[in-house]
């Protein structure tokens, strides 16, 4: 094995080592806002996934994490808001306009 081959092999190993064991291609998960509720109300995603909320209700709503990890502006009918999961953990969120509307997202490694 030449020195060049060794270096190439080491480089491949380094790349593989950086990839998390459960990694997969990032997905886009959709949450619909309708009937004064988030659907689905509970969602499981992986770090790197994108969550898109779409307001399909005829009333103005928002999506806002209790921890302030994200906070959308007021979404009118048909408007969307997206957020990319960067860290792991469980995040509860609500509609700032209607605090009884609640949802949660679990972000896995």
């Amino acid at each position, binding site marked *: 094995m030449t020195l060049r081959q060794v270096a190439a092999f080491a480089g491949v190993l380094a790349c593989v080592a950086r990839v998390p064991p459960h990694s997969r291609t990032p997905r886009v998960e959709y949450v619909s806002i309708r*009937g*004064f*509720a988030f659907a689905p109300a509970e969602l499981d995603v992986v770090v790197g996934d994108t969550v898109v909320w779409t307001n399909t209700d*005829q*009333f*103005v709503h928002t999506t806002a994490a209790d921890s302030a990890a994200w906070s959308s502006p007021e979404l009118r009918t048909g408007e969307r808001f997206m957020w990319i999961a960067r860290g792991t953990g469980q995040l509860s969120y609500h509609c700032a*306009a*209607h*605090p*009884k*509307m609640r949802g949660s997202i679990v972000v896995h490694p």
Partner: protein
Amino acid sequence: MLARRPLPLLVLASSFITGCVLLKPIDPSGMSPRTESEEARDTAQNQAESAPAPVEVAPAPVITMPAPTTTVSPNPTDTIAMPVAAATPAPVAREAAPAPARARRHDLGTVNDATISAMVLASNYTDISYAQLVPARALRQDVREFSRRMLTDHTTVNQLVRDLLAKLDIGPVDNIASLDMRDESSENRDILRELSGAAFDSAYVENEVRYHQKFLASLDDVMIPRARNAELRTLLSNVRPAVAAHLAHAEQLRANVLARK
């Protein structure tokens, strides 16, 4: 002689009888004699009436409203019996002015798509009118935010209803229920207008809880089941979660106001 002068004698006899009748002591009540049981019942009624009504002595802004239970008739155009709710003191708004003792009518009047439209419009305008009192009187920021939300959402509902009515070519027609809503709204506004600061916050939030309870009951018991047009029924069904969310929000706000959070 009697035979020859019958007329004067008859006149004399009838005068005597009439005199007896007239001399009989007259019942000052103008009523016929009553049995003991009737007397006892009337005495009990008088005592009940002379006792102070809870509405008049309660310091809270009592808002009378029909109870959420209704008797629904299978005929879509007849009237619905609706019991008048007894007014109860509001636990939150102790600082507020007493409410006027007022009895609501027992029925809603004609119920059809046109009158249901008038009912839902009147319900929304009622809450809009309450919300418009808030900026100049409320103390708490969360109460102000809540009222802004009510203004936005109920305006949205009315726009949706108006758009649909235009599409269906239905004109809203008032019935007893929608007229009652206006009367009640006016009376409640009169109460709220006199308040400010913490007293206003309490009375407004309590009123919002009651208003949304009533609106929800009206949707569930009358408007949704009695709407004949499918689009109108769908719209009312879509409005229901909004009213339920508002009620939950108002109840949470009331708890915060009570706890002075």
